[in-house]
């Protein structure tokens, strides 16, 4: 809880500073914009957090967004599939990718880094090939306006991606923090061998974490595709996996596995989006965008580490 608290305080402090400098930060339009992005980035970050808790990693998420986005566009605009079918196929494909990653990691004992790095290259290449290097769009969404509204709309002023994130978080919170499966997940991440000797089916636990990430990636892919309303296969989603990994780690997940929480991941994902939002709202030159992000995150983790060292010393 300590780790989340530090990130949470940083988030609150940032929001307070930005509000003081530009009160428009709290305007409904800005809150909606930011909540929408937090939703889109938060959903797959939850899954990535889960995989990180098992001691794994997934670098292929951004490329998967491009591939799934291209396929979604083709299914809806060229094949004219009914949209619920297309959505199910996208989510199933996400789950399938996750299952393949999980099986390669557990059955063949391959390193998650290399498996998903190959995924990063493979999916990007497939996306570009399938799209013949052309941008795939959704046009005016004739025939699937309902899906477009669902992915980009708002309910009572709250953007649907944010609602989806809240629902996904609630489910994942129960799964991770209130179920036996969640216990197994933490146990596996902390010490795989011990978990195996305790009778936990470690392979299944790890594979299922990748499948859950795959499902959430599919969901995010649909939201991102409709957010931009077109998918350019060579650049769509590039580096987005890093936002997910950063959100999870900022939120207290350890890259060594066995540590992390849903609330923490949510705070981490929010922090990353607020950081980008403040660069624009405060009129900081775009060129400093990444520098601001890197700087603030570094301050956050340094502060967190110092607090922990102090409390550890106090405990001794």
């Amino acid at each position, binding site marked *: 809880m300590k780790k989340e608290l530090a990130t949470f305080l940083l988030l609150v402090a940032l929001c307070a500073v930005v509000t003081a400098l530009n009160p428009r930060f709290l305007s409904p339009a800005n809150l909606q914009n930011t909540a929408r992005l937090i939703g889109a980035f938060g959903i797959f970050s939850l899954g990535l957090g889960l995989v990180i808790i098992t001691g794994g990693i997934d670098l292929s998420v951004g490329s998967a967004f491009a591939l799934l986005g291209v396929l979604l566009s083709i299914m809806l605009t060229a094949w004219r599939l009914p949209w619920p079918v297309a959505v199910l196929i996208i989510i199933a494909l996400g789950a399938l990718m996750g299952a393949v990653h999980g099986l390669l990691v557990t059955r063949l004992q391959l390193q998650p880094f290399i498996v998903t790095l190959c995924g990063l290259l493979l999916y990007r290449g497939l996306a570009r090939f399938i799209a*013949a290097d*052309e941008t795939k769009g959704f046009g005016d969404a004739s025939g699937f306006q309902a899906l477009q509204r669902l992915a980009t709309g708002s309910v009572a002023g709250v953007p649907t991606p944010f609602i989806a994130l809240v629902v996904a978080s609630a489910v994942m919170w129960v799964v991770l923090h209130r179920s036996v499966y969640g216990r197994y997940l933490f146990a596996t991440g902390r010490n795989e061998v011990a978990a195996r000797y305790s009778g936990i089916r470690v392979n299944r636990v790890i594979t299922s974490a990748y499948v859950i990430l795959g499902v959430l990636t599919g969901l995010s892919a649909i939201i991102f595709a409709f957010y931009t309303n077109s998918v350019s296969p*060579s*650049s769509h989603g590039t580096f987005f996996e890093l936002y997910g990994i950063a959100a999870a780690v900022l939120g207290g997940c350890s890259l060594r596995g066995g540590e992390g929480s849903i609330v923490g991941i949510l705070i981490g994902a929010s922090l990353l989006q607020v950081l980008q939002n403040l660069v*624009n709202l405060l009129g900081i030159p775009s060129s400093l965008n990444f520098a601001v992000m890197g700087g603030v995150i570094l301050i956050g983790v340094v502060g967190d580490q110092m607090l922990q060292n102090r409390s550890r010393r106090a405990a001794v």
Partner: protein
Amino acid sequence: MSHKTAVLLTCASLLALSGCSRAGTSKPQIAFITNNAADFWTIARKGVEKAAADTPDVTIEFRLGDGTAAEQKRIVDDLLAKGIGGLAISPVDPANQVTMLNDVSQRAVVFTQDSDAPDSKRECYIGTDNVAAGRQAGELIKEALPQGGKIALFVGKLDARNAQERLQGIKEAIAGTKVEILDIRTDDTDQVRAKANVSEMLVSHPEVAGLVGLWSYNGPAILNAVKDAGKTGQVKIITFDEDDETLSGVKAGAIVGTVVQQPYEFGYQSMTKLAKVVKGDRSVIPASHQIFIPTMVIRQSNVDEFRTKLKQLRGR
């Protein structure tokens, strides 16, 4: 001993093979090399194919780059090894590829297209005059905002040469008017960020009267963000290039106009002229060593005609 035999046999067969291929292609070879893979190049490819059909006595090859100088170097080395007579390249990083271009120019005729490397020993540049294109966009801005007003510009990377030149052209055109550039936001070709930048600009500067997208995907990003904010028609939009959504926006009147290049002509003219030079006719190269293909302004009045033409070129 057996190893040596194997090596000898391999060498012999390779020699035989290369001998065969050389005998088969006594025609001069030329090539068209892109900087990356994008819709733009699909159209250029049609021009290259037309040139190939029109000049059957020359072999013409079309190669896609991947956005890196390293890949272009690999492609060029490949082509030189095959005995290429000339090439037209869109250098990714002109300033730092001068040495490579100069090396190539000793063994083959080098044209630059799309993006120029004026400091190199290239024979000729064929492409857009981006300053002039910027001026055309500037005229559109002045026309849309006769009373003046604040405008914001959006682009992927501001350090790219075409971004700088387009910006320069816009500045020249609006000099002395009441149009004022409020800010220029960059997105590093991340389309999600591109749209978020616009949304956040509309929040932080509600008084903004015009939005200008300098790169092709900035058009749809602006269009969608303005639509989401419910400000269609209130904020004037001026864009570059011919993304499908941009053209739909022009058609619907949501975009004042878009300045388009003619990549088909890049492909056709560079290849037909290069073919002549390779065969010894240097008269096609002007004294300025630059051939500008004019950009065109597409508005609601001529968008249908342009779309029809584009459809034919793209073959879909």
